[in-house]
């Protein structure tokens, strides 16, 4: 029986805590008697008979006819799936998407359906490479569809392949992939890693056009999403749900399949990264010392390769299929079950170690903007109720924040960093003055559509996502970061955690309370 999440009060006998630092980690001692550490619940046991559970979900959907009854010869069937940004780290083969899609395809074949398209629901993310597609879908699916052009990636900028479905009462235009819109049935295969994923966000965001996306991906919406992990208090989700209504009325019939994974994130020998420090055995300790010492001497590009080749042992804990909203309600509960940790009260200082990966740098470089987004967009938002850090408090994160970029994946990030952040860190101002230029840039559009680049506007979305935290906090400090890069982000650089606590005392006084989020594995703090 896995143990639930846990809040450890730090006293003088508590061993030092693990802090991620990009492609490395360190142990840091937090001040005794006013610090606490939040640990995620232990990984839930996965479903034993995964294929059986998938089949069961497809045959016994929620608020929907069983899948076989929705399939008929001559129909247009489209299967859309979450892209490379999920799950993190990538799971060992076979990926859960492969298993679900193979099951759906089996049923489709039984029903005599031969017009099937499989689409990666990229939204404005980069196109996946062939290797990544093969990893997510398996060679069998890839080889059966890709050569015929029926396995491809959504293009939010392809004017010929988008369908306008209408507008919400708020004036939000709903425009999605044309093939998906014109199908007799759209099957969406999701992986719900965090509570933010899934629901109408799968289709209304994943398959949407840029024109449609900009209605909820903007500073106003994201500033009023408290939190993104709590759909009822997230403007982003409310907008997606309004769009969902238009999709239900004017769009294709949707059969939503959502899965949840446990948080078993690291294989051996990196298993200690998921363990609580006082439970480390001698081998864990030795591995920690050896690997952190070795990583200190490894060139960052090689360290990056090593970490990005990690495949996580996490496995499916639930699958539910059927009507979007009903399915998503259960999914969210399952996510909460694995991730919720009850925490009493807010804190003055929130500390977090930023790992090597976030949804937007799979097989790539975590550039400074993504460091910001991982900390302030993702981790800060991993709460329900109130943010972990009080208003006016301080966030201290550890990450080397190198001035490094991947020119293939993040071309517009480079220019955003050079041209926009050098002028302003104010999301509203950059939205007004710069966003359009980047969003409509021909070159970025070309790279997004033909290369493996994120859309030109993507760095803006990353920035907007962090604006809520930036407004909420009195100061943001990065420990061990490239000083120039940290300053460019508008944050304060510090060389050690102690220096950072010293700097923070300007804002929160000399004896602040400190809370360390020990992520990954992922968790949601339910702050009472």
């Amino acid at each position: 029986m896995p143990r639930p999440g846990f809040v450890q009060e730090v006293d003088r006998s508590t061993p030092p805590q693990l802090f991620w630092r990009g492609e490395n980690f360190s142990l840091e001692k937090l001040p005794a008697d006013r610090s606490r550490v939040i640990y995620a619940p232990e990984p839930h046991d996965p479903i034993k008979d995964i294929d059986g559970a998938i089949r069961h979900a497809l045959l016994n959907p929620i608020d929907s006819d069983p899948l076989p009854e929705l399939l008929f010869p001559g129909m247009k069937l489209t299967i859309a799936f979450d892209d490379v940004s999920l799950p993190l780290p990538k799971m060992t083969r076979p990926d859960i998407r492969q298993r679900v899609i193979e099951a759906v395809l089996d049923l489709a074949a039984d029903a005599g359906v031969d017009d099937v398209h499989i689409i990666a629901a990229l939204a404005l993310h980069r196109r996946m490479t062939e290797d990544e597609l093969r990893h997510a879908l398996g060679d069998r699916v890839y080889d059966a569809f890709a050569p015929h052009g029926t396995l491809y990636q959504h293009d939010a900028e392809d004017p010929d392949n988008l369908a306008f479905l209408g507008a919400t009462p708020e004036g939000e235009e709903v425009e999605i992939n044309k093939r998906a819109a014109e199908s007799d049935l759209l099957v969406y295969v999701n992986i719900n890693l965090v509570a933010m994923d899934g629901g109408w966000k799968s289709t209304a965001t994943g398959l949407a056009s840029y024109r449609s996306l900009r209605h909820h991906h903007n500073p106003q919406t994201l500033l009023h999403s408290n939190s993104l992990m709590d759909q009822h208090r997230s403007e982003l989700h409310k907008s997606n749900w309004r769009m969902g209504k238009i999709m239900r009325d004017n769009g294709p019939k949707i059969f939503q399949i959502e899965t949840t994974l446990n948080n078993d994130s690291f294989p051996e020998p990196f298993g200690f990264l998921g363990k609580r420090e006082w439970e480390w055995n001698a081998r864990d300790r030795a591995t920690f010392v050896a690997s952190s010492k070795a990583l200190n001497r490894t060139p960052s590009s090689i360290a990056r390769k090593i970490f990005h080749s990690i495949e996580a042992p996490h496995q499916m804990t639930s699958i539910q299929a059927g009507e979007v909203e009903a399915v998503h309600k259960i999914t969210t509960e399952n996510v909460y079950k694995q991730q919720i940790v009850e925490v009493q009260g807010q804190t003055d200082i929130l500390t977090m170690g930023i790992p090597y990966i976030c949804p937007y740098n799979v097989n790539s470089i975590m550039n400074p903007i993504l460091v910001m987004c991982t900390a302030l967009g993702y981790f800060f938002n991993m709460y329900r109720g109130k943010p972990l850090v009080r208003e006016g408090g301080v966030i201290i994160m550890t990450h080397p924040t190198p001035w490094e970029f991947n020119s293939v994946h993040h071309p517009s990030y480079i220019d955003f960093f050079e041209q926009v952040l050098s002028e302003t860190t104010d999301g509203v101002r950059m939205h007004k003055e710069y966003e359009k230029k980047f969003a409509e840039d021909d070159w970025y559009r070309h790279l997004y559509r033909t290369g493996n680049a994120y859309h030109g506007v993507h760095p803006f979305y990353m920035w907007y996502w962090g604006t809520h935290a930036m407004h909420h906090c009195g100061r943001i400090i990065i420990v061990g970061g490239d000083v120039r890069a940290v300053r460019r982000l508008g944050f304060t650089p510090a060389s050690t955690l102690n220096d950072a606590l010293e700097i923070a005392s300007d804002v929160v006084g000399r004896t602040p309370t400190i809370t360390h989020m020990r992520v990954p594995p992922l968790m949601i703090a339910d702050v009472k």
Partner: protein
Amino acid sequence: MIAESLAGKRIAITGATGFVGTALVERLLRAVPECELVLLVRPGRRSSAAERVRKELLKNDAFDLLRKNLKDTVEDFDSMCARRIITIAGDVSTDGLGLSPEDAQILASCDVVIHSAAAVSFDSPLDSAVEINLLGPTRIAHALQALDVSPHLVAVSTCYVAGNRRGNAPEKLVSEGPFDLGLNWRNEVQAARRLRSDAEAASRAPSQLESFRKEARRELGAAGAPALAAKTEQLRTDWVKDQLVLAGRSRAASVGWPDAYAFTKALGEQALTDEKRNIPVSIVRPSIIESALAEPKPGWIRGFRMAEPVILSYARGMLKEFPGVPEGTIDVIPVDIVVAAIIAVSALGPDRAPDITQVASGGINPLSYRTLVDNVRDWFTQHPIYDSEGQPIIVPDWNFPGRGRVQTQLKRAQSLTNRAEQTLQSLPLRGTQAKWSAKLEERKGEIERALEYVELYGLYTECEAIYQVDNLMGIWDDLDAKDRDNFCFDPRAVNWPEYIHNIHLPSIVQHARVKTQPGKTRTDRASRLRANVLSRDRHVAAFDLENTLIASNVVESYSWLATRRLNTPERIRYVLQTLKESPQLLAMDRKDRGDFLRYFYRRYEDAPVEQINEDARDMMTQLIITKSFPDGLRRVREHRALGHRTVLITGALDFAVAGLKPLFDEIVAAEMSIRPDGTYSGEMKRVPPTGETRAQVLADYCEAEGFRLDECVAYADSTSDLPLLEAVGHPVAVNPETRLAAIARKRGWLVENWDTAPGMSKPLLPIGTMLSERERKKYMPVAGRRGQR
């Protein structure tokens, strides 16, 4: 009395645009209000004599005082000049002065002719020094004789006509003194002219021409035939000039003068005396003329003369040692004293003026070499100038070594830097590394200059002649108080430490525009140039590809495509083969890029077009974008956003750069012809755009689209692009190789150092990523079977 005696007179002046000439014109206009000036000026290559007077003379800050005085009077400065100045076009280096009949009549109407035109540079070629300094005064005398007039001719010469001697140098012709060698100036003229034609002939000898070509090639690399030809011709004329400079220096030294200037001036005095006949001549001999003591304003100076470059080199820390005798006299005289003396001599008229008047300080108010050096060092210790990094330069102590020792030191340093430079140039350096070589070149220039100064000026600091000023003081003694006030030419008026500290050094530091404030300024210059490049007024921005926008080249693209469908053993074989060939390929590329491309692209023969196109799409992401310079791509888009046309001119093949299409309005790339069976022939459709062809391509594009080349911007990285860079108005050197870095530096071009995105891994070998499993199986059955066992 002086102003009155020159009132209503017409005074002709030669050399008015020079240092003394400018001060003279200003002084006469201001202090002798009733005189008229006739300026004999040589028309420039692009501007007429009158234009030169307007631009080069009257705009000088010497006239600021006069301009201000006249501001609120009835007649302003410009109309006063129009009334009192007549400009005539003429040239003292041609017989008859090249005057038109009308201008000749104007010259004939003059009462006084002041001849101050001279080739003052100590290292002029012998023949031009002879034409101007030796024959100039005589030509004026002849011209006046031909016009049948005999105005008072005041010829400006130099004290140093006395030659290398110790002790007193009286105000007498050299031929009248005890050291006369009896040289015949006519023979010297003949010999100098002969030397010029000999040198011209020698420079055209095949072996010489070959060495110029080699040198041009070394300097420019594969810049294309026209650029090399221009450079070769320039090297040839420079060589001829150097020969004549050397000839002048050796001839002067052989007969006892410090340099060709003093030597030709001495013979010029002799020639004038021999040829003057009925023309009354007065000779004025200043010593080393420096900035003004008081008028038109303290410290006024025009152009850099003798002491300034030496002083500045010292202040820059360049001259660590300078030869000289510490107790020797440096005979310096402020320009306003010289001008006043010339005017006083003119005012005395032909009957009363002494034949020769020396204007010097050594005999009456000497400045010792040690005083000068000490004061200069004190001043620069208090007011250091700053190097390009914004650090103050500490001036060294001079020990007054002998000339030989300094020369040996400098020559050793010179040969060392030469060798280092050759080594650096042969290395494939780029961008920031190329800066080493630029620094080295700077250092080399410094040493060369220092050596030159020591050779040229060393003799002056060792000169121990004392120039007598009896005649000058005689005139001074006869002056009334008013003239003494208005035309002070008493060398005793100068307080040397005061003059050096408060007048001369502040002035030359200001003129030299050296950095007198700490802090870096280099970026300012670059951002100014950048703003200029990114101005809305530009029309077209042309880009080279390799090493300008991407860190890759045609060999890499080929290797990437060629290895894409190979298995591992084949890949290894390919890499070894390519490495073996690379020296030959490199040599060929250096020699002629066009030939290299044609040879190299043969390798694509029989490649299926469809497969290449398919692979090229992947290559775009995996090679080209991976190795692109984000700053470069951003610059292209900045140009587009400003409404400029963007053009890519590259020797790369069209399919390799097809993915860059959205960045450019026009892509000019190499194209191969396609055979009917759908394979490439390996032969080019037309001449690949390299070297001077690129300049032509851009010129044609501009012509067709109605743009102007001087409003174009061009970005390139190597000297082979020199024709393109030279053709446009705004060249930008990107990651320049050493030779281009040196050229860009000299010409003040914008230099950008662009790199691939930080953090991108840099693969050592340009090899295509392996195909995915399925295709691996398809293309590599051997490897597949081995796996099954």
